[in-house]
């Protein structure tokens, strides 16, 4: 279509308006100087200042960053292993079953994931005394489990599109596993790994439901703290914090998309 129909523009505009106007309003109100969230009283950045001074929120943000970083990293390691096995191994008994199992956490209700992980941690503690109580570690493990499933799907997709013969060529030229994996396969799927990491990080950073099941004292993530604060009424501070989160998430999504596009572009030139 060389000429866009005005209706198409209208529909697109309407769709994006529904998505982004609420966020835009929240961003604008985060610069409100009034203490009342719904009353506009001029521009100010004071809530950002108060936000930085608020130790509880800053601490929660730091916890969320730590949880996000470690759970994404662990999730990427295991997710890559699963994705590689599912994409590369010839048919083995139970491959289809395993494939479904690996992706199930994606569609599983978070309440179910959270509850089952909580029960697992409790029984583990009773049985072997580890992990001792709920805290940072349990949140990281829980988030890594979910992140892993997403990473596995991303990696499997990338690998099944890529040419298996480059690994055979390496073998033919005298190389062996695991050397081939680290020098040939890993560099080729690196954009997918980074995209998977960013995805897992974002999921962990956003998560409220699973974290509230498996967190303990001293491991309240940012969404938990925000949620508990909002229950006592929304303050302009929260607007400022949400704006920062929007900015961070937007950067993450843009980076992941950019990486995906770049790897696709290099793949397309490979084929010509």
């Amino acid at each position, binding site marked *: 279509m060389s000429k866009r129909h005005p209706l198409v523009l209208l529909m697109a505009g309407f769709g994006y308006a529904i998505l982004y106007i609420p966020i835009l309003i929240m961003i604008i109100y985060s610069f409100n100087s009034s203490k009342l969230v719904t009353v506009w009283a001029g521009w100010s950045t004071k809530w950002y200042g108060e936000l930085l001074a608020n130790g509880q929120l800053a601490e929660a943000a730091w916890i969320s960053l730590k949880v996000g970083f470690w759970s994404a990293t662990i999730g990427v390691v295991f997710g890559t292993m699963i994705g590689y096995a599912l994409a590369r191994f010839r048919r083995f008994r139970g491959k289809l079953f395993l494939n479904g199992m690996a992706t199930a956490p994606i569609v599983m209700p978070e309440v179910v994931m959270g509850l089952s992980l909580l029960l697992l941690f409790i029984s583990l503690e009773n049985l072997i005394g580890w992990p001792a109580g709920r805290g940072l570690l349990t949140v990281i493990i829980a988030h890594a489990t979910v992140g892993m499933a997403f990473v596995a799907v991303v990696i499997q997709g990338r690998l099944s599109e890529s040419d298996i013969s480059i690994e055979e060529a*390496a*073998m033919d*030229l*005298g190389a*062996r596993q695991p050397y081939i994996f680290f020098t040939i396969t890993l560099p*080729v799927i690196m954009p997918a790994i980074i995209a998977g990491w960013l995805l897992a990080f974002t999921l962990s950073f956003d998560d409220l439901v699973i974290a509230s099941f498996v967190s303990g004292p001293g491991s309240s993530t940012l969404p938990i703290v925000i949620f508990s604060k909002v229950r006592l009424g929304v303050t302009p501070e929260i607007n400022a914090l949400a704006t920062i989160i929007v900015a961070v998430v937007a950067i993450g999504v843009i980076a992941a998309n950019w990486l995906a596009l770049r790897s696709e572009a290099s793949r397309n*030139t*490979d084929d010509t």
Partner: protein
Amino acid sequence: MADKAEESGPKPFLRIHNISKHFADVRAVDEVSLDIQQGEFFCLLGGSGSGKSTLLRMIAGLETATSGHIEIEGQDVTNVPPWNRPVNMMFQSYALFPHMNVEKNIAFGLKQDNWPKAEMDARVQELLDLVQLGEYGKRKPNQLSGGQRQRVALARALARKPKVLLLDEPLSALDKKLREETQRQLVAIQKEIGTTFIMVTHDQEEAMSIATRIGVMDEARLIQVEAPREMYERPANKMIAGFIGQVNLFEGKVSRKGKTQTITSMDTGSLLEVVDNTKLEDGQVVWIAVRPERVLLKTNPKGRAANKANGKLTDIMYLGGITHIQVTLDSGSPVRITISEHWDEDEAKLKLGDAVQISFEKRAARLLVE
């Protein structure tokens, strides 16, 4: 023929003995035996699913044989893993490492063999010169054209000085003009370095123009192994006769009286004579294959004799150097004729629908029993 591989003689360079590969219930390669001599440019020719690529991959060690064995210079390599075999392979997709530049791609195999840095650099340069890519060492694969990538893949596969180089449809991704040019380069390079090449292709013209010998595969079996000229002149069966070049097939029935046997054809309505002493059964159905360029055309049909038939001119396709003619015989069978000389005046007056006579010498005919 395939069973010639069993003959004794000078020890073959590469011996494939009774090799089979089964995938679940599918026989991809079925009891293939083949001897290849040092310095040959051997082409495995066949359609898709004929098993030619699987055979090549078994030589490379990328597939394990279900039964049979492979020897290189008398050494049994059937169970040697691919990284330890003295063969290298050039892949259909080229399989260049996208994250490494041309030099690193070529040096990859040398690095595995722990070549000293100085020798490795010299070898890479030597190979870049061989494939005429001297300037392109620092480029990444996606900065090269299809033809250049093809040459990098060749250089990389040759780097470790393999005893046998395997090429899996190496030219299929190139356009026609570049492909013909690359065929010549490939032959020149093979002559220069003297390495044994085994190439898989589905393109019979490519095999004819490149190979010292051709092995035709069909339905997992090796049907015939022969030099291109012999393969064209003496195809083993109808399938090969039609696969290698074009052919006219006349069906005939054998009748035997004592020591003399005659073949009568329904297609030509006459006797068929060939130079062939094969003993045939009475009533057996055989085929006589005649190449289009060996069929003669006469403008005044008269008389009936062996290897002659009357018909009508149904198609003329003038291509300049050669002319393709189709004659439909009185029996209804079409016959293709290729004429490469200039037409004389009588022939030039020919038009569609004219009555003509076709004939062929008995030396031009080949008897096929299957």
